[in-house]
Every structure is written in C-alpha cells, then in structure tokens.
C-alpha cells in the first residue's frame, strides 16, 4: 500500500474583490509515494507546493480530486495520529516555552504525563535545542523555531512526515542536522515527503522527486530519470597539465578554463565516458583534482519550465476548470 496517494488534486482560489476570477493554484496533481521513501517535492516559489501540503493536511479543501494517506482519506483523525507536519515558517504560541508547547501537542495526541516527561526533553535534545527548552519561542531565532517545528512534527514517531521547506532559515550546521534527521527517519521506516526549492537538498536525500511549476507537475520519478538531474557532461579539474598535452586532446574537450598555472577546468561531453581521457592525462603527468557530472541547475530548469508555461505564474489567473 502506498503511503500517500494523490489523485487529480486541483485547487482553485478566487482572486479580485469586485470581479472575482478563479486562480488555479494546483492543477490535477497525481502522485503516489511508497512507504519508506524520502520524496522531494520541488518547485520555485508559488509553484503550489505549500498548497499541496495544506490540502494533504486538510488546512484547505480541494476544488476537485482526492488524496489518501496510509490508505485513509486525508483529514481522518486516526491517520493524523500516525503522521507529522512541519508548516512553512512555523510560528508557535508566545506564552508557551518550547517544552510546554511540545507537552501541549503531546497531550493532544493522547500521551500520558509520564510519557511526555521522557519523550519531550529527549526530542528537544535530538533537534538541538535541549538547552533552550524553557525559553519562549518569541526569543528564538528563525533556525531555532524551525527546530521546534521539526520536533513537534516528529513528536509521535510518525509513519509519514510532511516537511514544508525544512531547511528554511537554517545555517549550514542546522541544514546538515536536518538532513541527518531525515535520513534517520527514513532508516526507522518513516516516509518523508518534503518540499524544497533547493536542488542540493533533494540530491542528498531523495529517492524520488516531483517537480511542480505553476501548479502543474512537470516531472516526477527517480533522480536520474528527471531531466533536471541528469548529467549533461563532465567537469574535470586537473593540475600539472602541460599546455601541449592539453592541445593534443583538444578534440575530446568542449571547453577549457585556466584556473591557475598548469591547472585547468575541462568541460567534457557526457559520452564517451571520461575514463580514457583521464587515464591519458594522468599518464602524461597531470594530477586529478576532481571529476564531477555537470547538471543543469534547478534554477535554469525552472526558468525554462516557467517559459514553457506562460500564463501560469502566481500573478496570473488560470483558465477556469
């Protein structure tokens, strides 16, 4: 049984006060996410990622289509016991400390006070704000708030967890901690559905991704199947490369950038594989610094996709359903 099934989910909003017109925020989205997957839901701002998550949390109701989580319709209270949700830029009550907030949420989930006494401090330690447990969120930085948000999302050891931009506001250490946490959740068998507009997050974590642009799904599948992630060539950085050796292999190289004396960044085609050239250069005395696949950036991909979908930007009104 898939963990999440989204079937033709569509959401229209009404825009304009005097003459309301429909604006389609999400257009017939269909996805299936297997249990235990880390699924990246990618797209530029305004693509419909947060709308999708709100529909899955039943914070909004779909215009048409349906969705199921763990085989039950979204909004089912029984399912809510088994899932977690981190909203985008979370905000909590000013009058509760981080510890009291988690205690409150844990009590709503039915945990006894004895359970809460062990679970809550452990969780705050796990997300790295154990020392600030008695501070009120209004004194927290954005990154600390994000950690409280993550803690409340995984309070019930969820089977499926939804993170809306979990890396937002985090410094590099925080980002790494969240990445490790997501991988830990995956190792426990938890399905992680997270939205992001940062390609590197998806690359580091996801088994599969979906890309949403202007409310429409433009790509979905394993990382390597999605065009945005497929390599278009190689970048080879070598040192101690004599210019005459470089000239000898010019035909196999698409572009050359001189970094410093006898140190070059070479742009190679995807095929043939760079192994033979690399062997030849090393045999001629060059040292390998790095070899990386060159990918189209997500930003480039988004720009291209937005161009291909004119009239579907946030400030435009979509055709009525």
């Amino acid at each position, binding site marked *: 049984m898939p963990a999440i099934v989204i079937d033709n989910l569509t959401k229209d909003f009404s825009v304009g006060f005097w003459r309301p017109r429909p604006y389609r925020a999400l257009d017939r989205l269909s996805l299936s996410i297997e249990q235990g997957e880390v699924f990246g839901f990618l797209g530029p701002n305004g693509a419909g990622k947060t709308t999708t998550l709100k529909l899955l*949390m039943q914070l909004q109701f779909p215009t048409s289509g349906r969705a199921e989580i763990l085989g039950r319709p979204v909004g089912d209270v*029984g399912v*809510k016991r088994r899932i977690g949700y981190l*909203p985008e830029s*979370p905000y909590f009550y000013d*009058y*509760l400390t981080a510890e009291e907030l988690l205690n*409150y*949420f844990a009590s*709503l989930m039915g945990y006894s006070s004895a359970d809460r006494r062990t679970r809550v401090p452990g969780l705050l330690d796990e997300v790295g704000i154990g020392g600030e447990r008695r501070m009120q969120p209004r004194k927290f930085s954005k990154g600390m708030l994000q950690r409280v948000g993550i803690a409340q999302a995984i309070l019930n050891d969820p089977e499926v967890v939804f993170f809306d931009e979990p890396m937002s506001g985090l410094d590099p250490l925080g980002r790494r901690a969240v990445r490790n946490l997501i991988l830990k959740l995956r190792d426990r068998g938890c399905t992680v559905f997270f939205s992001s507009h940062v390609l590197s997050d998806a690359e580091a974590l996801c088994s599969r991704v979906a890309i949403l642009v202007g409310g429409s799904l433009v790509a979905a599948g394993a990382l390597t199947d999605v065009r945005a992630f497929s390599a278009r060539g190689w970048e080879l950085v070598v040192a101690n490369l004599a210019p005459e050796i470089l000239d000898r292999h010019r035909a196999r190289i698409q572009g050359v950038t001189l970094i410093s004396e006898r140190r070059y960044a070479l742009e190679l085609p995807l095929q043939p594989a760079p192994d033979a050239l690399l062997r030849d250069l090393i045999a001629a005395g060059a040292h390998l610094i790095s070899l990386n696949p060159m990918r189209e950036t997500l930003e480039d991909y988004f720009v291209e996709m937005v161009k291909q979908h004119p009239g579907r930007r946030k400030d435009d009104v979509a055709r009525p359903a």
Partner: protein
Amino acid sequence: MRVIGHIAVNVFRESVRDKVLYNLVIFAVLLIAVSLLLGQLTAGQDIKIIKDLGLAAISLFGLFIAVFIGIGLVSKEVERRSIYSLLSKPIRRQEFIAGKYLGLVLTLLVNVTVMTAAYYAVLGSMAWVAGGWFLPAWEAPAMDPALLKAIAMIFLQLMMVTALALLCSTFTSPILATALTFGLYIVGQFNADLKHFETIVASRPVALLARILYYVLPNLSRLDVKTQVVHALPVPAGYMLWSAAYALAYVAALLALATAIFMRRDFK
C-alpha cells in the same frame, strides 16, 4: 472530550500569561476607592450605589474580556499560523471550537468568581463600618445573597457574548468581528423592544421583519436583573431557569453555526 479539555486549559493558561487577570486588581481598586468616596454620602444610598456599580463593573469587565479575547481565540491562531501545526494533530475542527470556547468561559468563570468575592468583601466592610448587616434605611441586607442571581445572569450574558465573538471571528477580520460583536451586544440590550413593534408600525412586512429579528438577535436584556436585585424586588426561580435555558440554547446555536463555518474554512 479529552482534547477539548486540553485546548480549554491552554486558553486559560494563555489568558493568565497574557495578564488578563490583572483586570481583577483594577476592579478591586475601583470598588474600594468608590466605596471610600461614597462613605461621605447619606447612609443607605452608598450601599445601593456600590451594589449597582459593582454589578455594572462585573458586567463591563467581563464584556471586555469576552469580546477582545473571544475575537482572538480563532483569529490570532489563523493570523499567526499556529493553527497549521495544531490542526495537523489528531483533533477535529469542532473540538477546536468547543475547546476554545470552554477555555474562555473558564477564564470568565474565574474572573467573575474573584470579582464576586471582592464585591462581597467591599459590601461586608461597608456594612461593618455602618454598624450593621441590614440597617432600616436599606431595602436589602448589605451582603444580600440575591445579588448572586444578578451575577449568575451576567455570567450567562457573557457566555452569549463570548459565543457571538467566536462566531464573528470565524468569518471576518478581527476589527470587523469586534465591531460586530459590540454592535450585537448593544442591539441585544434593546431587543425586547422589537417584540411589540407591530403596535407602533402600520406596515405588515416591517412588523414581520421586526418579529423575525426579535427571535434571531440575542435577547440580552432578558438576562439583566441588576435593578431588581439591588432594589430587593423578587426574581422568580422559574424566570431564572427559563432565561438560563434560553441563554444556553442560544450559545449552542451560535457554536453550531461557528463550527459549520469553521469546518469549511480554507487557511491560506
């Protein structure tokens, strides 16, 4: 019920931490100051004025809490987006509404109880200074238990106003909701006049509209027995019971409507 209880307790905790209960200090200081000032007046009048003033102050302080906190119960959660995390927990939207309402009613109950204790303490001290619990010049004893009837009715009024504020905040902005609730509170004081509107207007449709409005709008004047108890006039138990039944039925209808609206609401 467990979930409703946790939400209600959290509302009460919010009120305490937001220093809402500070109003009790203002109430006590106001009452004591006025009683000292009135000590100079003719015996017999000062106790009546304090009775009137105390009941009016309980009503007014409660009204401000009911409206301003009542409006924020839902709108603050939505504006600050804390509702996103809350509603992703295993709670139903109707439990959210019920918990929020009961939490504020609990806050009001604590407020009204403490204000009542302070009220009786001031009345008791005035009687002690005057030299008797029931002087011949007074219409009723200083610490007349019948005052509790008026306070109970004020509490029922406040329950209705809280439900009105909660309902208004489910479908409009906090400013409009505040204006609407105060408007309905004022209309509710004069609602009884609509009952016999047909005797002063000739138009049948207008009379019919007035009759419909009489039944739809809150009849808060029915719950106002302040004048009767201060002047030691009887307030029959039957009247009290019917008024309580009316108030509770009206609250139930308002909460049902608030829930119905809230159940369909999209959080953008």
